[in-house]
């Protein structure tokens, strides 16, 4: 049968992350559709590292790291040993509804991490637009040229963050609430502030499994269609999904067998993270931020299976 590839005239931008210039993006076909296009770079799998001891984290995740959790540096080292290709530092300490720390502890920690790890470093704020602008802009200036990936950058705080990030060569995670038009608008606003497109990652906002994942899934598919089939340059940027925190705050992932035997074994949360991760990778995610190292290994296997060089054999099925 004559297989007809789906016409794609667009291509997503290749971006180079971190001091080692790790490439993401550059796809000219839908996720893993090697039978009709190319995807030069594999999706990047990152693990969360918190700047404080993760009291709110479920036991299943804590057990995976053990004593390493008491130091973010040890935690990051353990995450790298588990195969993380990027570290996503979560600045929990700066939350005004929590410890409300100033930028200083984060400044110190980011410096130590930059010296210790050689993978891209994502620095994630506390989802308070004002506080994030303060802390992330301080970081941007202090670590000029060190190629941090800073987020979330929203419409509400982009004017304070974007010029600094642009001047000092950092990458921005542009976060919008599950909406193609808002994603486009924010990217244009960032460009107006001097941020080049190749320094923007799109964060479409991630819904948890059973908690709105389908909205994220469909918005990502629409973003990829805009990039690949409608050749929309402003949306042809790599996609980043913060999946781990959505999975591990849900009751269904946290419940232990002893309190809820009907939910089965305690690796259910890992399976939830893997299942949701697969769907986001298929929808076009270029970077996934995960919580549990075992989920990372599972999703690594998934990516390896689909990147396997079985092209010739595939032809039978086209």
């Amino acid at each position, binding site marked *: 049968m004559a297989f007809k590839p789906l016409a794609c005239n667009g291509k997503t931008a290749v971006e180079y992350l971190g001091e080692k210039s790790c490439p993401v993006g550059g796809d000219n076909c839908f996720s893993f559709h090697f039978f009709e296009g190319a995807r030069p770079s594999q999706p990047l799998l990152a693990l969360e590292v918190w700047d404080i001891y993760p009291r709110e984290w479920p036991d299943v995740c804590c057990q995976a790291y053990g004593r390493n959790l008491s130091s973010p540096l040890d935690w990051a080292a353990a995450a790298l040993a588990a195969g993380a290709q990027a570290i996503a530092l979560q600045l929990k300490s700066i939350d005004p509804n929590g410890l409300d720390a100033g930028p200083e502890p984060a400044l110190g920690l980011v410096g130590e991490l930059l010296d210790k790890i050689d993978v891209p470093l994502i620095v994630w704020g506390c989802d308070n637009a004002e506080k994030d602008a303060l802390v992330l802009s301080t970081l941007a200036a202090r670590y000029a040229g060190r190629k941090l990936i800073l987020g979330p950058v929203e419409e509400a705080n982009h004017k304070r963050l974007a010029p600094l990030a642009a001047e000092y060569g950092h990458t921005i995670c542009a976060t919008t609430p599950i909406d193609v038009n808002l994603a486009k608008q924010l990217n244009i606003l960032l460009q107006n502030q001097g941020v080049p497109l190749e320094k923007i990652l799109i964060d479409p906002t991630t*819904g948890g499994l059973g908690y709105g994942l389908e909205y994220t899934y469909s918005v990502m598919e629409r973003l990829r269609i805009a990039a690949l089939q409608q050749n929309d340059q402003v949306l042809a940027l790599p996609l980043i999904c913060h999946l781990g925190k959505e999975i591990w705050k849900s009751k269904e992932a946290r419940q232990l067998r002893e309190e809820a035997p009907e939910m089965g074994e305690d690796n259910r949360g890992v399976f939830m993270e893997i299942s949701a991760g697969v769907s986001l990778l298929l929808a076009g995610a270029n970077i996934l931020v995960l919580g549990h190292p075992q989920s990372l290994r599972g999703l690594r296997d998934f990516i390896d299976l689909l990147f396997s060089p079985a092209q010739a054999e595939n032809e039978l099925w086209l």
Partner: protein
Amino acid sequence: MALSGIQIFSFLPKSNCKECGAATCLAFAMNLAANKVQLEQCPHLTPEARNSLAQASAPPIRRVEVGTGPARAVLGEETVLFRHEKTFNHPPLLAAGLEDNRPDWENRLNSWREQQWERVGLSLRPEMVFLTCASQEAGQFQAVAQKAAELDFALALQGSAEILAQVLPSLASARPLLCAAQEDNWEIMADLALQYRCPLLLRGRGTEALAGLSGKLRQRGGQDLVLDAQTRTLAQTLASNVTLRRAALLDKNQGLGLPIINFASVAGGDPAAEVMAASLMICKYASIIVLSDFKRESLFPLLLLRLNLFTDPQRPMTMPQGIYPIGNPGPDSPVFVTTNFSLTYFIVNGEIENARYPAWLLIMDTEGLSVLTAWAAGKFVGDTIGAFVKKSGIEEKIKHRQIIIPGYVSGIKSELKEALPDWRITVGPREASRVPQFLREWNLQQNDAN
């Protein structure tokens, strides 16, 4: 696929004879497109035109039914490549493989039946058993199949034509999927499927082989087919499923416009590998997914993913209106009110549970709109909330008269006060993630007040 009136018109005699009751053939075509009349009402349609019309109006992916009674399920009838284009119609059946000579087959079936969960008023459960006759004994095969059917599982029955011929007299009424017709046995399998009116699995290595077999089957009269492309890797499965879906929708290839079966073991046998394989198959076009076993911890995530992706994007899922107690609330526990968009409910409910303070959650029917949208549409405002609170019955469950409204609708506080004069209206947080902190402070204040 639905045809437009104009498309139908091109098949009609165009004589405007009025015998169908319509003034013109075009009017009849329009009525037909709107499903207001039957094709048979046109007395002058040639058999050729009737055939072409039936073919042209057939769904691009054929509707195939398996199972009967509570186990009845519909496969196929998908019309889009991406769910946002319209919706995905029929969630893939999750099946577990079973060999009939396993000594623990009965325990397995019973434990599989117990695996179900309630969510958004729906029952989440796996629905199929893919049973293989490994015993080579029709009696054993039939006993296991019967038990599975009694437990409300739809059946796929895999065995030789001889074995199937022996068990079908008693099992055909359960409308099992017969497995499998392939190059060397398709005639006898097709005849069995036709005789017992059962759907038939078609097995061929690759798209070309399937298209050829499917053509032969259809010529013999077999229509209710399910395709197994016999992929050997997950990459092949993705390529194959995408190719088949496109062949059906874009090329209108009727021979390939059929539901697809996938085997999750293609990614390797361990549970994590099956979860990832089945997740891909849910996203990308399988109609039946066969797992090696049902285990709660791996089944539940797949059921959730399936629920999410097969939700109609144009119709948000809703919760029934009512009072939802969280963590055994008592007469002094706080009362929250919010809308019945299921996501709103789940997130608020989850945050209250996380806070570990008992509370009453009033869910008001806003036709599935979220808080701000419902407010903007005039469905979640002072009058309507007031009336709902009064008739909800919450007043009999609590001693206090205090209600917490979402922070995004703080503007309705005074109108709600008018509607509920005996009540104290408290404005809660805007974001559900702040609910735990809000509850901590609320409880501290209550303790101080006492």
